[in-house]
Each structure stands twice: as structure tokens, then as C-alpha cells.
């Protein structure tokens, strides 16, 4: 059974029909990427998965369990964590408090302590700055913090929304390396990116989204070699 199964979902933003019968599956242990242009519905897809938007039709299920009856704050108990677009860290809380918020729903203190060690190994910069107010971090550090905060939930499925946005190329490289590292440690990842080039390098499989519909899917390799993808998303004529 797939870890995440989104089946024939129709979601609306007010009256705008943003997702028109979208279906994707993510298997345990995979990195799956969702690529597409601005306004294709990538963020809406993630927001629908984590319950911020309720689909009017279709279903989202995690390991066969329909997520529909759960409230937003309950979805994280099921093992889904989001790294939101634009990072959205709590800028007036300290780095440490931000990470602690990530583990808000957990009661296993030993596990939380372990995860603190784990994210501090992954992001030594955050350890140095753990008592600093998060709003004073640089853009790259804030992206690290947003990622680390999601890891603190010890998710089975991590949703990443445009992690490369607004970062210097060097930082983008390191963020994507970290994503692979997190995946190797056993977290399944659904990655939304405009930077299709990077996304298709780290992902195992991918979906191409256009105006709320999946127009193409396949292994990352196949998508990289697809002429349509090359032309529209990779800038190769």
C-alpha cells in the first residue's frame, strides 16, 4: 500500500477550481517531486494533503487511512510534516523554541532529545544559534530552521514547498544534499519545486502539474529525457 495516496482530488480557492482531479501516490522511502509553473497548483496540492484546504471531491489517504475527518492539527499526529513555502518560521521565537514547536504534539521526551541531536548534526549552524531569535537568521539559515522544525515532528512523510526559493545557488546545493540525507535516514519526501533541474536530480520519481492537472509522470530519469519537460521546465531546446 502506498504511504500517501491522493485520488482524484478537486480543490478550490474560493471560486477558483485549483485542482482538477489530481491523483498522485508516494511510496514509503521515496523522494517524489511535483514540478510545474507558477499557479499550476503545486502549493494547493500540499495544502490539501495537510488539511488546510479540504477537497470538495476525492480523497487523501495515508497508508490507506482517509485523512478527511481530521482537523489540521491532527494531521501532524499521523506523521505528515510540512516545510512551508517562504519558510514561515516563528520569527519572534528563538531557534530552540521553533524546533520545540515542531515537536509540539510529541510526548516521548527521549525521542525529542534524540531528534534535537539529529537536527543539530544535520544543521550545525542551528546549534550555534539556538538561543538566537529566529527572525535574525539569514534566509538560508531560516530554510534550515524550517526544515529542521519539520524533522522535529519525526514525520514519516515530509512535504517540502519550494525549499530553494530565494536562496543563493551554493545554498540550494546544500539544501538538496540535506534533503537526500534526510531521505536516506528513512523519511519519505514529497518535494514541490520550480527549480525542476535540481528537483529531478534528487528525486526518484516525478509528476508534472499544469493548471491543476497531472500531465506527465514517470521516473526522474524519464522526465529529464522527456522533450516536453526539457523544453518547458529545464530550458533545453
Amino acid at each position, binding site marked *: 500500500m502506498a504511504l500517501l495516496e491522493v485520488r482524484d482530488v478537486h480543490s478550490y480557492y474560493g471560486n477558483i477550481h485549483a485542482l482538477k482531479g489530481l491523483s498522485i501516490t508516494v511510496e514509503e522511502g521515496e523522494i517524489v517531486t511535483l514540478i510545474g509553473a507558477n499557479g499550476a497548483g503545486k502549493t494547493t496540492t500540499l495544502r490539501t494533503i*495537510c488539511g*488546510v484546504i479540504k477537497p470538495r471531491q476525492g480523497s487523501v489517504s495515508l497508508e490507506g487511512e482517509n485523512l478527511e475527518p481530521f*482537523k*489540521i*492539527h*491532527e*494531521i*501532524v*499526529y499521523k506523521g505528515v*510534516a*510540512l516545510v*512551508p513555502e517562504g519558510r*514561515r518560521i*516563528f*520569527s*519572534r*521565537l528563538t531557534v530552540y*523554541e521553533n524546533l*520545540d*514547536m*515542531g515537536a*509540539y*504534539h510529541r510526548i516521548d521526551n527521549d525521542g525529542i532529545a534524540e531528534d534535537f541531536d539529529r537536527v543539530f548534526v544535520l544543521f550545525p549552524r542551528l546549534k550555534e544559534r539556538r538561543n538566537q531569535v529566529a527572525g535574525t537568521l539569514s534566509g538560508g539559515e531560516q530554510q534550515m530552521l524550517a526544515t529542521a*522544525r519539520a524533522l522535529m*515532528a519525526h514525520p514519516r512523510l515530509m512535504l517540502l514547498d519550494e525549499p530553494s526559493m530565494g536562496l543563493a545557488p551554493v545554498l540550494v546545493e546544500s539544501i538538496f544534499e540535506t534533503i537526500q540525507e534526510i531521505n536516506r535516514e528513512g523519511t519519505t519526501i514529497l518535494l514541490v519545486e520550480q527549480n525542476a533541474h535540481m528537483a529531478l536530480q534528487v528525486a526518484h520519481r516525478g509528476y508534472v502539474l499544469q493548471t491543476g492537472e497531472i500531465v506527465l509522470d514517470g521516473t526522474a530519469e524519464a522526465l529529464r529525457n522527456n522533450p516536453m519537460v526539457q523544453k518547458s521546465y529545464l530550458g533545453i531546446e
Partner: protein
Amino acid sequence: METLPKKGPYRQALAAIRRINQSRIFIISFGIVIIILLIWRIVVVARQTPFPPQYWAFQIINGLVLGGVYALVALGYTMVYGILFMINFAHGEVMMMGGFAGFFTLQLLTTLGWTEGSPYLSALSILLVIAAGMIVSVLTGVALERIAYRPLRTAPRLVPLISAIGASFFLQYSALRIFGVTPHNYRKPELISGGWAIGETGIFVTRTGVFIFVTSILMMIGLFLIVKRSKMGRAMRAVAEDKEIASLMGVDIDKVIAFTFALGSALAGAGGVMFGFHNTVMRFNTGFIPGLKAFTAAVLGGIGNIPGAMFGSLLLGVIEALGPSALGVPTEYKDVIAFSILVLVLIFRPTGLLGEVLTEKKA
């Protein structure tokens, strides 16, 4: 500057900057004129009627005590604003309900004879009175949130504000119906009646004053620890900053908001009891003016800012106590002075004295 285009967005922007500067200059000069007038008035009055220093000391102490009471109420305004960006105009009535609960408990304990004689029993009865005030206020505040505000959370901002004003009148006139128009007199337990003279200075501090001030400071420290150290406090701050992300972290927003109302109301309930001891009378509309004053204090310190509310309240209390004498006007004008301060703060420093400039978008 002939290289600049005669029309276009650049020119418009330049004109806009000039306009802002002009209005800014106008406001600042207006402020300076007012401050000069005030100083002149104070100097004239001080020459005509030289009050002894003891009088000023007494007024400052009085102001700090009143400021302590305001602070307990102002914190509720500021915390709710920090999280929901709405002014809970019924908060003064939450305080009044606590004051009445305290009154009836006090009456019961006086009849039982607990408030006289044994200092232990007397102290216990004071604690019970405060506890009763806090409990009733918490119930009122939480019910208010559940009934009058929660269903309107997604409505435009003006709607819950109107609901709050309605709730304020509802509580006031329910209290009128239940408790009647006659003032209820708080009878002070022996433990907090009387006072001490400080050495030979001629300055007299009342026990009630010391009790009120110390209790409010202790409660503010308690609140500060809850907000800064506890898990719920951290969730409160996270929700204040970004509700959606906080709920994605597993925070139940409804619970956090209810907790915020409970916390603010508990302080207001204690404030109601303190106000009863300070003012000695409790009426159905007792919460109204102190509620507005506490709101003024919260704005003065910077609404949404907890230390700001504490600072603003103490400052407002002192200004109110000193103002009439310093300006040589009758004490009845103290409310005029307090609300003039509100207007001046809103004109010159809309973010309040300790308020931060809101760079990130709010709500």
C-alpha cells in the same frame, strides 16, 4: 534637476514623500507646543499652590497602586489583541463579574467571622476572595469567547468588535438586574486595613495599597513565566505569530485561544477584587471606566505587548494621580487627562511607547 521626468510615478512618489514629511513636521511641532503649554501650566500651578513633598509622594504611591490594578486588566486586553487582533471590549465586565464574586465570598467569610481576629484565617479568607473572583471571571471570559467570538472568527474584523460591545452591555445590564443599582460595599478584612507611617517623613502607606501592589506584581511575574517558559505559553506566542503554521505543528488553535482568554480573565478577576478593596464599592457599571482605562494603558504601552501593558498601566496610574494637582484642575478631570493621553499617544506614537513597528504583515 532637468533630467527628472515632469510626470510619472517617480514624481508622484517624490510628492508623496514631501507630503508625509510635511504632516510629520506639523505633528511634531504641534506636540512641542502642547508640551511647552503643559510645562508652563505645571510651573504656574506649582508656584501658586505649593503642595508639600509628602503630598506628591502620597499621590505617586496612590498612582502605582491604581496602576497595578489597571495592569491586571490591561494584560487581558493586550494578550487577546496579540492573538486575535481584536479588542475585547467586554473585558471590563469580566473584571466586574470577578469583583462581585469576590464581594459575595467576602460577605460570606465576614459572616463566618474569618476576616477578623486570627491573621491566618484572615489571610486565607483574602486568598479565597481572590480565588473566587478569578474563577468566576475565567468562566465569564471563556464563555464569552465560546459564545460571542469563536463563531465570528472568520468574519471581518469589525464584526467581533461589535459583538464585544454587545457582550459588554449584556453583562453590565445582567449585573444590574441581578445585583441591583445599589453599590455593594467591600468590607476590608482587618489584615489589610490601616497602614504604616514611614519614619518621620509624614508619608503614609495603606496596607491595602501595599497588598494590591505586591499582589499585582506577583501575578505579572507569574504571567510572564507562563508565557515565556511553559509549553502553552510558547504555543500562545506561536499562534500570535502564525495561526496556520502553528496548527500544522499540531497546536489546537481553539484550545490556545480559550487558554488566552482564561489567563487574561483570571488576571482581570483578581483585578476586580483589588479594585473592590481599593475603591470599596462595587456596582454593575464598575467595570466600564476601569476597563476603558486599562485599554488606554494597553495602547499607551503598545497593544499586543505584555511588558508594554504593565509599563503603560503603572504610568497611566501615576499620571492620573498626579495630573489634576499638577495642572491645578479638580480631581474629577482625571478621566479627561487619562483619555487625552490616549488621544495624544494615538497621534504621536500609534504603536505605543514600547510597541514595535509592525514590519511583517499582521492577521
